[in-house]
């Protein structure tokens, strides 16, 4: 078998393994799904009325926050992956894989592929809930496709970062820093309120952190408004973070084991 086909076959095997974990123990996926849905209910139901007045564009608040909620969903999905990778690395199984004649890359590729499938499933469910709650995107198939493409880039970026974090953390607790990041950053972005309504340093940070252009672009694609220059910035952030996460993860993984 050639190196290439070995890599594909082994990655498929590792993907099956990860998906089997999800099917066997859906708890972590349910949790990572529950938080975005709760946030959606909370913001639309509790703050929606009050915030509605302040959001420009005459659109309802749910249409405003769905892109941000999607980002939170992707973030939670990725933190599940950080944990799964860390579990593999801190238990003996990784040593077994490393002493087998398999494509080494397949260990990480399997995790990333599984994470992508898991996260898209979660995203679809969250969009479903949003639609039930009154989310009304006004867009055409091409822009839907664009939005899906951007979300895929975002998922890859977050997942590769999560894999790297999972690899470098000596314990599962070490990965919680990543979770904190994806929990807090959306709040200091245009996810729930416009950055213009923030003040001082927070406003500057919110306007310049990666989540804001990604959310703005998603919102524009879903609500059929002009994307502007945030589109390019969003793609650049996603590609940049993916590349950084991938290279980081690869170098850590190829380094000699700690023990």
């Amino acid at each position: 078998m050639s190196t290439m086909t070995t890599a594909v076959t082994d990655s498929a095997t590792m993907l099956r393994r990860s998906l089997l974990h999800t099917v066997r123990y859906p708890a972590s996926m349910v949790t990572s799904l529950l938080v975005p849905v709760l946030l959606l209910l909370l913001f639309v139901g509790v703050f929606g009325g009050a915030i509605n007045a302040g959001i420009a564009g005459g659109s309802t608040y749910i249409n405003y926050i769905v892109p941000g909620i999607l980002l939170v969903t992707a973030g939670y999905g990725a933190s599940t992956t950080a944990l799964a990778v860390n579990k593999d690395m801190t238990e003996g199984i990784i040593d077994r894989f490393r002493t087998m004649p398999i494509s080494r890359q397949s260990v990480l590729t399997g995790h990333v592929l599984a994470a992508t499938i898991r996260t898209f499933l979660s995203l679809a469910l969250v969009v479903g809930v949003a639609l039930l709650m009154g989310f009304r995107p006004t867009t055409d198939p091409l822009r839907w496709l664009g939005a899906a493409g951007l979300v895929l880039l975002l998922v890859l970026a977050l997942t590769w970062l999560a894999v790297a974090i999972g690899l470098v953390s000596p314990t599962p607790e070490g990965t919680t820093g990543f979770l904190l990041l994806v929990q807090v950053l959306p709040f200091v972005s245009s996810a729930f309120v416009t950055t213009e309504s923030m003040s001082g340093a927070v406003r500057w940070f919110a306007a310049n952190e990666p989540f804001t252009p990604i959310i703005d672009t998603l919102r524009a694609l879903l609500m059929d408004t002009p994307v502007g220059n945030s589109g390019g910035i969003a793609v650049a952030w996603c590609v940049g973070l993916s590349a950084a996460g991938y290279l980081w993860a690869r170098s850590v993984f190829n380094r000699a084991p700690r023990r």
Partner: protein
Amino acid sequence: MATTPSPSAIVATGLRKSFGDHVVLDGIDLEVPRGTVFSLLGPNGSGKTTTVRILSTLIGADGGQASVAGHDVVREAGAVRAAIGVTGQFSAVDGLLTGEENLALMAALHHLGRAGGRRRVADLLERFDLVDAAKKAAATYSGGMRRRLDLAMTLVGDPSVIFLDEPTTGLDPRSRRTMWQIIRRLVADGVTVFLTTQYLDEADQLADRIAVLDGGRIVATGTAEQLKRQIPGGHIRVRFDTAEDLDTAARLFAGSARDDEELALRVPGDGGVSSLRALLDRLDAASVPVADLSVHTPDLDDVFFALTGHPSSRTGDQPSETGHQSGRTGDQTSATTAAKEGAR
């Protein structure tokens, strides 16, 4: 396999490894003939696991060379991995998957194909007595079952060289004996086994050749018998009723070692009838009554002590196989088997 098989399954010369300032391996040489069991024996921290990790391509050595199954562990790591199976000290099973799924995962990674993989999995479940537990998550397995699954997973790829890093550490005596039987059967199938252990009786039981590792150096190699012959002789252990008796006796026998806690004296000697009689005569002449006496011919514990200057670290909490061991080696002439444990 394309290359002509060299007579040795494992050859290592001058292996060195340090972690920071800490020298773990200080130049070790090994040679393991095909189809034999080789045991690396040493206390915790002597470098056993590091040796296994280098030979199984997990980490690189700082110096020296090693080849496994005829391939260099660095330059031909892929070929080495194709020939070996490794069961590490820490369980390498996927706890979330069932025993059967774990084995199927290995079969898939070895590209055995659907039918071939299924046959192999069924065969190994049967052979390792895991049929009943096949559909249960490995996380729910007992220590012994988990270790059996671990070894079964190692065998899916039909390796010709197997590394077992402390395969029975933490197992109860019964699981331990089951493991020994499994290892013996592997050897009967022509597999080369590289075994590390801190249990002297385990090396004695299983290994064709033993290397004693201490502080990153190999301090002795040979068969169990050869190692035992390396130290001058056994000892006679005499226990007394009072500390005064012990004091008196200790003065009588120069070169003896006293154990104040047990009120016992360890007198070097071959344990032959004449030396035993001489010893008792001298005690009689000094009117020292003897409470208990046992004759002890050297076993690997003594070898270890003689070679390294300190007892093997785990002698105390080693699962007791004493009866079994003395039965096999026949070195215990005393009725008090417990004396052997107490002597150290």
